[in-house]
């Protein structure tokens, strides 16, 4: 177990380094970053002076180490467009994103349990087909489309739910659904397939023979064993939700990290994008590592790998 742990951690560190190198390198490859921040009337000497001031005339690897050094100390530099320090701006936005994710993700996962049970136990019935239809649709339709569709139906035509910004409890509903629908759909399908297999096994028959009511068979016994596949995918989905929130937050003008990234795209603010992507990737790597370690703890076979 210790060996697996070390291996997994080492891999996480390597991944983070690789991502930071890629993000850093892309900025430099795409052209002189000075061109983005210097005004048009600047002369050669101005460029040279600015380069020295920002440390851009030094060899690339020195620049990289300086950059990583300051990142690890918490200094993320300044946004080229708004001239604000990126660190506080980003973390404030991240807080808002987390609020949205914390609302939509657990609901999606919890809702997938009864849905998957319905789909697995009443195979072929109308309710099962309905559930699977929702699942397939939820996995296919892009989240920004779902968001816009919900806005058109509920905010514009029915006028019952707010369409933008973080105002109160009701403003969480539409973005939450848009963000969580994909997770709900994936989980339902995976869990349903897993349950189908589990429900035909012998020990389930034994539990039934012992006289347990069908509901207990489904919820306590079948679910426990069918949920292993679901756990790993849940961990990955959580990471993807952070990424998926970029589109949803843009649609709903939610003041989160995703929206910040969108603003960065629109204004070509590379410093902002760089930091945001780095931090989000780091979070995802950490989450995946934790999930893998937990999985290694639960299922001993994995450790052999």
């Amino acid at each position: 177990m210790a060996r697996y742990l070390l291996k997994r951690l080492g891999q996480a560190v390597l991944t983070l380094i690789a991502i930071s190198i890629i993000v850093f390198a892309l900025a430099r490859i795409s052209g002189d970053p000075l061109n983005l921040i210097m005004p048009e009337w600047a002369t050669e000497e101005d460029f040279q002076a600015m380069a020295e001031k920002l440390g851009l005339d030094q060899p690339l690897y020195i620049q990289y180490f300086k950059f990583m050094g300051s990142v690890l100390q918490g200094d993320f530099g300044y946004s080229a467009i708004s001239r604000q320090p990126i660190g506080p701006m980003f973390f404030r936005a991240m807080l808002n994103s987390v609020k949205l994710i914390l609302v939509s993700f657990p609901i999606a996962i919890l809702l997938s349990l009864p849905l998957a049970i319905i789909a697995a136990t009443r195979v072929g019935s109308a309710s099962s087909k309905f559930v699977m239809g929702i699942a397939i649709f939820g996995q296919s339709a892009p989240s920004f489309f779902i968001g816009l569709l919900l806005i058109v139906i509920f905010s514009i035509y029915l006028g019952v739910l707010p369409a933008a910004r973080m105002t109160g409890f009701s403003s969480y509903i539409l973005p939450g659904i848009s963000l969580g629908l994909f997770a709900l759909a994936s989980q339902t399908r995976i869990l349903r397939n897993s349950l189908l297999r589990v429900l035909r096994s012998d020990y389930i028959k034994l539990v039934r023979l012992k006289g347990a009511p069908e509901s207990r068979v489904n919820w306590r016994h079948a679910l426990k064993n069918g949920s292993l596949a679901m756990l790993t995918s849940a961990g990955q989905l959580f990471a993807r939700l952070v990424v998926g929130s970029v589109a949803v937050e843009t649609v709903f003008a939610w003041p989160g990290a995703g929206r910040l990234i969108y603003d960065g795209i629109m204004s070509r603010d590379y410093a902002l994008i760089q930091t945001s992507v780095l931090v989000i990737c780091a979070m995802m790597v950490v989450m995946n590592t934790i999930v893998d370690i937990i999985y290694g703890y639960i299922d001993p076979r994995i450790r052999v790998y």
Partner: protein
Amino acid sequence: MYKQNKHMLNNNKNPWLRTVPRTPAILLFIILFSVVFPGLFTDYSTTLADLPNRLLPPGTEGHIFGTDTLGRDLFTRVLYGGRVSLLVAALVLVVSGSIGLTVAIVAGYLGGKVDALLMRIVDIFLSFPPMLIAIVFAVAFEPGVLTVVTAISISYWSKFCRVIRADVLQIKEQEYIALAKVAGCSDLYIMVRHILPNVLDTFLVVMSLEIGMVIRLEATLSFLGAGIAPPTPSWGQMVGAGRDYLMNAWWLSILPGGALAALIFCFNMIGDWIRDMMDPHLRAVLSVKTEKKRWLKGISTSRETITPANTK
């Protein structure tokens, strides 16, 4: 009983064809056909403005989907926009598929240190979130087809690699590989001539399962402005551009978005079917013999009711 139930049998000679999900297949065919040959369905131009007729709702005379802010027929733009989405998806699959295949076969076949090293690299690339990398690319370089394809492929090749390598490991143990080695075939020859053809069916399965996600990713990127740039119409980009007019002209965003959802839905369903077809366990379940047995017993033979239990 035979005569009573005869109507339930899908009277088709080919056993595989019986299980094709009909709706997605037909819908996919319609979409692909109309996107590849838009000229057959519409005469409008995608770029010529017709300002007197701007923002007409769907259903107006001559414009099934309505018109956009410049008066361009939306139906035409949707049809032409589909081409770009499909083109990008196809390119991504070709590029990342080839890289993934090559690395998987080399790593799986050669094994040992090469395998370990390559798998480390694959794991690292596997944990890159495709969308974020693509966003970084788009801001660093100009948005466009090349940028998008490169960015998505960088993350996606590793997905292919993982699955195919597992398959290669299985194939490697087969007898004909050992025979080939004894006969003096070089490693390269064995990899290309023996392993590659046998890996292709797994490759097909992964490809058909992933194509939906690739289309979805490209659409999201274009929506955010980090994918295909105007004036080239792409569905995601049209949805993004139509956002400002959601109050008055919902069709600008909703109709291309609906086309996206429909296309991805079809690919997902077909992908599922291909995967079920290739799965050796399920092959028995979905075969002609079991279907005939159920049909004789009077049990429904439609695909939704098939579970491993009632196909014995």
